């Protein structure tokens, strides 16, 4: 998940935001969409090493617990 800069970013800040992503080995926060279903966008804390989803959250709604495998 990247944060959109506020105000008028410099070219460098803009480029960082648009093109650069951290290649995290570990837990990262990601946007996911239930693409072929209800179309809902939600946030997930996912461990990129194990693919384990630790937590999901619908923005603006109460927190939802991760489904147990």
């Amino acid at each position: 998940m990247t944060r959109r800069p506020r105000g008028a970013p410099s070219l460098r800040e803009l480029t960082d935001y648009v093109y650069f992503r951290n290649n995290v080995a570990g837990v990262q926060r990601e946007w996911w969409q239930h693409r072929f279903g209800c179309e809902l966008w939600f946030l997930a804390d996912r461990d990129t090493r194990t693919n384990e989803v630790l937590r999901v959250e619908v923005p603006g709604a109460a927190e939802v617990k991760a489904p147990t495998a």
Partner: protein
Amino acid sequence: MRLPPQPDELLDRSHEVVFFFRGEPVRAFAGDTIGSALFASGRRVFSRSFKYHRPRGLVCCSGGCPNCMLTVDGTPNVRSCVEPVRDGAVVEPQNVLGSLDRDLLSVVDKVGRPFTPVGFYYRTMIRPRRLWPLYEKVLRNVAGLGRIDKHRGRTTRYDAEHRRVDVLVIGGGRSGLKAARAAAGRGESVLLVDENARRFGAEPFEIVAPGRALGIYEGGLVPIDAGRLLLRVRAGRIVVATGAVEQPLVFPGNDLVGVMLPDGARRLIRDFAVKPGERAVVLAADDRALAVVEDLARAGVETVASIDLREHDPSEISAEGRRGRLHAVSIEGVPHECDLLLAAGAPQPAYSLLAQAGARISYDADRGIFVPSELPEGVEAVGRVAGDLGRLRPTRACHGDGGFVCLCEDVAVKDLERALAEGFDSIELAKRYTTVTMGPCQGRMCHLPSIRIYAHAQGTDEAAIGTTTARPPWAPVKLGLLAGRTHEPAKLTAIHHRHEELGADIIWTGAWRRPHSYGDAPAEAKNVHDAVGVIDVSTLGKLLVAGPDAVEFLERLYPNRYADLKPGRVRYGVLSTDAGRIMDDGTVARLDDERFYVTTTSTGADSVLGWFEWWNAVWQLDVEIVNLTGALAALNVAGPQARELLAGLTATDLAAGGFKYLDAKEGRVAGVPCLMLRIGFVGELGYELHFASPYGEYLWDVLLERAAKPFGLEAQRILRLEKQHIIVGQDTDSESNVLDANMTWIAKLDKDDFVGKWAIEHAQERGPRELLVGFVMANGTVPAEGGQVVRDGRPSGRVTSARWSERVGKAIGLAWLPPDLAEEDATFEIRVNGRLEQARVRLRPFFDPAGERLKS
């Protein structure tokens, strides 16, 4: 020559099968493989090797090695040792000139071998460069595997099938069967897959054999090659019981015909009742392999020597042949005359699938093999693949000076040593350079021996060398199987059947099937200019954006303004990403204060919907987005007579003053409730009618009865090009922004913020690198879309759209040009069929530049 019936043979001796090898009939029994039947008929040479055309015979008899590959019924590279016999099958040798026994190309082995080490072709024949295509042609003919018959056409249909089971067992040996029975006994649904077409008894679960598990993918997906069917299996649990593979020993002469793996000889005897030779020497390093001596005795083969490599690992083994056939083997100087040499080191667990799934592969120095551990959840290993192999001891890397490591690609020991000497000292690099493990056997026969040789040559151990990454597919797979029928559905509009009835030429546009034309596109375009036409535009994306924050939402998403858009008015919009790239375009109609009707391009509908939903989740505005794309049909009625035609069908005031250009009105047309948008992609007076899909055919029929003539995509493309209206994705690409696309007016940079604003500001500061402009050709040639713009002999731009316009009387188009060229009347050249043709810049629409007809 067959042996008397064997207790477990796979043959049905009451059922004879006849197939043809080089035109000669070969008699076999049902249950035979093509390989076993040919061997029984006396054939010993089955193939010629990849590079040197050395004669090669059966080695593993289990579909692992490349030696038995033949062309069967036109399909090249069939492993004949596991291919069941079929009546009338036509079997031919491959990669030979002449016959298998007398291959004229074997001259390569005699003359060329000393001069053709690894990498030879590419280093030597690259100069002079222009001759490489010739060399390549010759080399491709000399080296290689079987050939595809290009004139055969498609004769086989491949399909994919999705399956879900509780337990998937890969491998039908003793351990695999035991695991499958146990799972079935617990009431779990079980699928067992085995590489060989061996006979299974009645089991309480489904068996796919022959079938090859190609890999273990994310989420436990296992594709299985079952001949003409690709099974995509998802299992709760995967049990890998792939066993272990006997490893060939490396010594001079180890590729002679008659040198086999013990298991291969055992299969010939037990499964097919064939005597593998007359006099045998056995060299093996595990109890199972050594027990082959008993099979040999039963089959009447004399064992002249049997050596347990765990007790004594000879320093030198050397096999001698006569005309490529084994004649004698010398072990530490002691000669043994024999026609069969069964030689194998410790069996290596076939761990590839486990490694793909994420298991750790580590070297067991005491036993001399790599074993899997730390299996991922849901994956199990049972039996020999898990290392359950009895007492083992590592064997030498090489027994003597020379020999082949890789039978698939003809790589010899000296090739590996040369690669190391040249600095390819990492196993991953050496693999790519020498191609060891990259042939059809996928390393089954050469991975461990090659690691041993690297370790030996570098004075280190196997653990330090490590293994190469195991990647799918584990077994060679036909492209046909991967390219087989998919489950890609076509989208059809509610009016589609009418187009078919009219005999329209239907084409794919993204997922949609749409009419390209109804027979004569230029006439369809002319009719829109002169009278009135109708086109089915139901494929447009249609979104309702509603809520108290709807205006705010659109203001943030679009570069232009919507706060000042009055209810009942329409505005063109272009969506940009924050990288400044043009993403999609369409129209936005304001229905009332809080409701907007947004159209997108046909192909962009899904991505724009996802985009809107996402920004809505990010911004948390009070907006609802409803996707109406499928619910609504849409027709564009366009042409000077459009008003007249619709006037007879609606009570809505269509007068020029009452229903202006870019007005939106709700009303009934022929009784059907419609949203009518006065817009003009095709440049003539036009009304886009959006209405519930079920009315599609009805309204289409009514319009056609009232003399509207249908037009297709091709006519629409001509018409829009006359107006220089762009098509996103055709005239723009991932580099295009609204400034360069000559839509400067659309970016309202005085707005506080919108998606893409900063990137557009930076692009403005930098100035355009190229501009999208219209052009006319000096003569009537129509350049290709994608054609090259040339200035002073240098490529300096490209054509994105070009058509002949009857109305303009010229070949017209759109092109990206350097900014200094993008001025009215500037001339440049376009390469057309190798010639340079003159073109001239036109910044304004080619037709009706003032928009008088559009606004009439």
